[in-house]
């Protein structure tokens, strides 16, 4: 840092590679020369003019201006900070602060003037609800913090701030409720966040990889949501949340498989209806994973085990097919996956057209031409649709479906059963952050079963889930 304003301004502008949007401004206030440097593309011009420029220009006393006078008398800003090192100045500048230098002073005054392009909170496309709050997180962390603060009007809400990424210096916030969240878990996560040394973080999913434990890569280890009401509910259960600047996805942990079986809608609907829907979702998981594999194993190896009427129907529709059932199933699966991928990436109006071409023309013509059979198309279609009963688990279930098709096609029903036992055992072996992955089913936790496959009324759930190891267990005082 230099004593002269001119030197400071030139030095820091050159430090930022003389980028065109780095602006400097000099003016004389009283007897003192003042210099300002800021990035204009991220600057809130209105606040800058009203709170900084106007008061400075209107100051008419003919005396020497000090930082104290600036802070107390001139600037109409409540958040001011003094920095004394070069690194701090550069960090603050890149974080879109306004830096103010005074002639003869070897330090600077900084204030937040950021006005990044921000999206208004809207209903997230990944988790829409029929009833319940429709707000969703946005990319701006300040707005996201505000959305969460709106729900917790308590001093127990703790927010720990981290800065991750050598180049991006992304702001990462760890949220917890004091007295409810497990302190050891907070320490463990904080340590992990502090130890991340990466060039940049552009989304919360970058953080996710650093928080994962062990090698259970197939299974999701950390919860992710775009809705503040879900984050609030999970924090009330004793979980912690991680917010990353620039990402609308908030991570929650510890995570158990059951969480993806629960939807935010469940908590705003009739418990009996919710129980029914959760059973349907569980069925959806089973159908997604094993239905094509089971169908294939019956067609290839155990056709005699099929009831006669079904056997005749299947035999009639599969007569004269050029491919083996296994090849046929793989072919249809690949076709559907390509269609899915295309419809996801193309512009919406083109996506609809592609779906029509794919599903109606390719599927229908394929069956009519005798290349593929209609039962196989139905089975794959059912499996593809069923995956969206639990959309958060879609990537995992898609991989499992392929594995089960392979097992059913090569080893028959015994292969499918073997796969089921193997994967359930693998899931049972997972203990991310000391939390059993399939709890409260295995190990069975009776009190947690009130909000598992069945859903009890909120008045009956007096305790927080035991799986989160919270010390404050009572949720509802009766």
């Amino acid at each position, binding site marked *: 840092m230099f004593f002269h304003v001119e030197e400071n301004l030139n030095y820091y502008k050159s430090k930022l590679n003389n980028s065109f949007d780095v602006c400097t401004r000099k003016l004389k206030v009283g007897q003192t020369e003042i210099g300002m440097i800021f990035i204009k593309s991220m600057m809130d011009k209105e606040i800058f003019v009203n709170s900084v420029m106007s008061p400075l220009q209107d100051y008419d006393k003919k005396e020497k201006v000090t930082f104290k006078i600036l802070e107390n008398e001139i600037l109409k800003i409540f958040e001011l900070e003094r920095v004394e090192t070069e690194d701090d100045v550069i960090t603050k500048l890149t974080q879109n602060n306004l830096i103010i230098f005074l002639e003869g002073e070897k330090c600077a005054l900084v204030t937040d003037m950021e006005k990044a392009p921000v999206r208004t909170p809207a209903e997230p496309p990944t988790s829409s609800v029929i009833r319940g709050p429709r707000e969703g997180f946005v990319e701006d962390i300040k707005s996201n913090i505000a959305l969460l603060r709106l729900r917790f009007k308590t001093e127990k809400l703790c927010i720990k701030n981290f800065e991750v990424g050598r180049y991006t210096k992304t702001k990462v916030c760890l949220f917890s409720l004091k007295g409810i969240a497990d302190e050891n878990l907070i320490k463990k996560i904080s340590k992990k966040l502090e130890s991340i040394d990466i060039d940049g973080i552009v989304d919360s999913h970058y953080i996710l990889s650093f928080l994962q434990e062990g090698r259970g890569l197939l299974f999701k280890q950390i919860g992710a949501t775009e809705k503040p009401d879900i984050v609030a509910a999970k924090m009330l259960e004793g979980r912690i949340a991680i917010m990353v600047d620039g990402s609308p996805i908030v991570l929650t942990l510890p995570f158990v498989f059951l969480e993806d079986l629960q939807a935010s809608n469940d908590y705003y609907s009739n418990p009996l209806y919710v129980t029914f829907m959760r059973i349907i979702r569980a069925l959806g998981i089973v159908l997604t994973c094993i239905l094509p594999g089971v169908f294939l194993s019956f067609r290839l190896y155990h056709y005699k085990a099929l*009831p006669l009427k079904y056997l005749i129907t299947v035999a009639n529709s599969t007569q004269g097919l050029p491919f083996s059932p296994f090849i046929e199933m793989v072919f249809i699966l690949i076709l559907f996956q390509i269609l899915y991928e295309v419809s996801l990436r193309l512009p919406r109006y083109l996506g609809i057209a592609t779906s029509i071409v794919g599903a109606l023309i390719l599927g229908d013509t394929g069956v009519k031409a005798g290349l593929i059979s209609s039962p196989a198309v139905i089975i794959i279609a059912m499996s593809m649709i069923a995956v969206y009963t639990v959309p958060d688990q879609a990537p995992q279930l898609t991989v499992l479906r392929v594995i089960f098709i392979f097992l059913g096609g090569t*080893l028959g029903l015994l292969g499918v*059963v073997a796969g089921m*036992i193997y994967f359930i*055992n693998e899931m*049972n072996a997972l203990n991310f952050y000391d939390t059993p992955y399939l709890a409260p089913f*295995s*190990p069975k936790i009776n009190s947690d079963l009130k909000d598992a496959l069945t859903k009890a009324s909120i008045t009956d759930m007096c305790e927080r889930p035991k799986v989160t190891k919270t010390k404050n267990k009572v949720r509802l005082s009766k």
Partner: protein
Amino acid sequence: MRQDITARQAGILCFLMMLSSKILALPSLLYKDVGYFAMIIFLMLLSMEVLFLFVFIKLKEKYINLSFFDILSKFLGKIITKIIYFLFFVYFLIAVVHLIYDNFIYLREAIFENAKIEKFLLIFLPIICALSYKGLNSLARTAEFFYIFIVFGFICCLVLGASSISQFTLPIFENLSITTILNTSFKNIFWFGDFIFFLMIIDKIKVKNGFGKTIMNYVWLCFVVLLIFYFIFYQVYKNTSFMHNNAITDIIAFTNQVENIEKLNLIALLVVMFIIFYQGGVLFYCLNESFSKICTYTNKIQNYILFVLGTIIVFLLFFYSSQKIHLYLANYGKYLGLLIFLILPIYLIFQINFDKNKKIYNKKVKK
């Protein structure tokens, strides 16, 4: 990874192990030798099995944190304990081979026509190795997860079997000599030693108030459903019971029409498939446990090598001489069974009663 299992999980393990070995060939084998008296022999041997489990639970209550190896070596010395553990190892190895052979035959008859043993082993061995390699904790949790489905499937089989009985008949007991009864019991003793696995996991069960009662509740439930199962089986097939080696599937053979759903033997098949993988996993785990005590290895790589070697040995033994092994087992397995399932538990009863010094065993044992 934490290895402790809860009393409920231990109870479920006992339930599944007890159930799995007795629902296929045993009813017909017993009937072949002693007719309807099979029910009495079954009841007798099953009661003995349950009684011995009770003894093992008492042993656990007395020596809370000690492994069975530590308990035995305290009283019999390390060398004799290692010899006993070698017998355990042989037993578990035979039990795995027995399981593979019996279930291969069953599944080939039931659903896999022209199935080859290589393919069966290709599915079976890697899975049971993986199950046991992941440890007791995940094995117990998996049992807990599938338990309700297995019980539901089994009860469905019972209900469907009972619905096909046209006429209940009172069993006529033939005049049998005590020697015949004892001989039959002795011959089939190998089927009634499932709880030996409990000794291998005895130090890994969490002790809470009433843990023994919890375990026994599952065992009594299994006891009752097995008795009902045998009763229904003998009622369905009466004098031809000896011809039906796949009891669980055959019991519902006459109930293949419930509205439009045919082929209900699939339920039985699924029950058996789930159980065999599970039983295989537990037996393989115990095989590893017994071997680890004989060789006293500690490191994970050695553990892994053992699994691979164990797998290859079982595979080769089975692949090259399956018929011979089965015959050998039928002739000599009963002696091993007598030693492990009868003499050892009786010794333990004496041990529990005569060892009055219990103060030091309730402390946490560091390993």
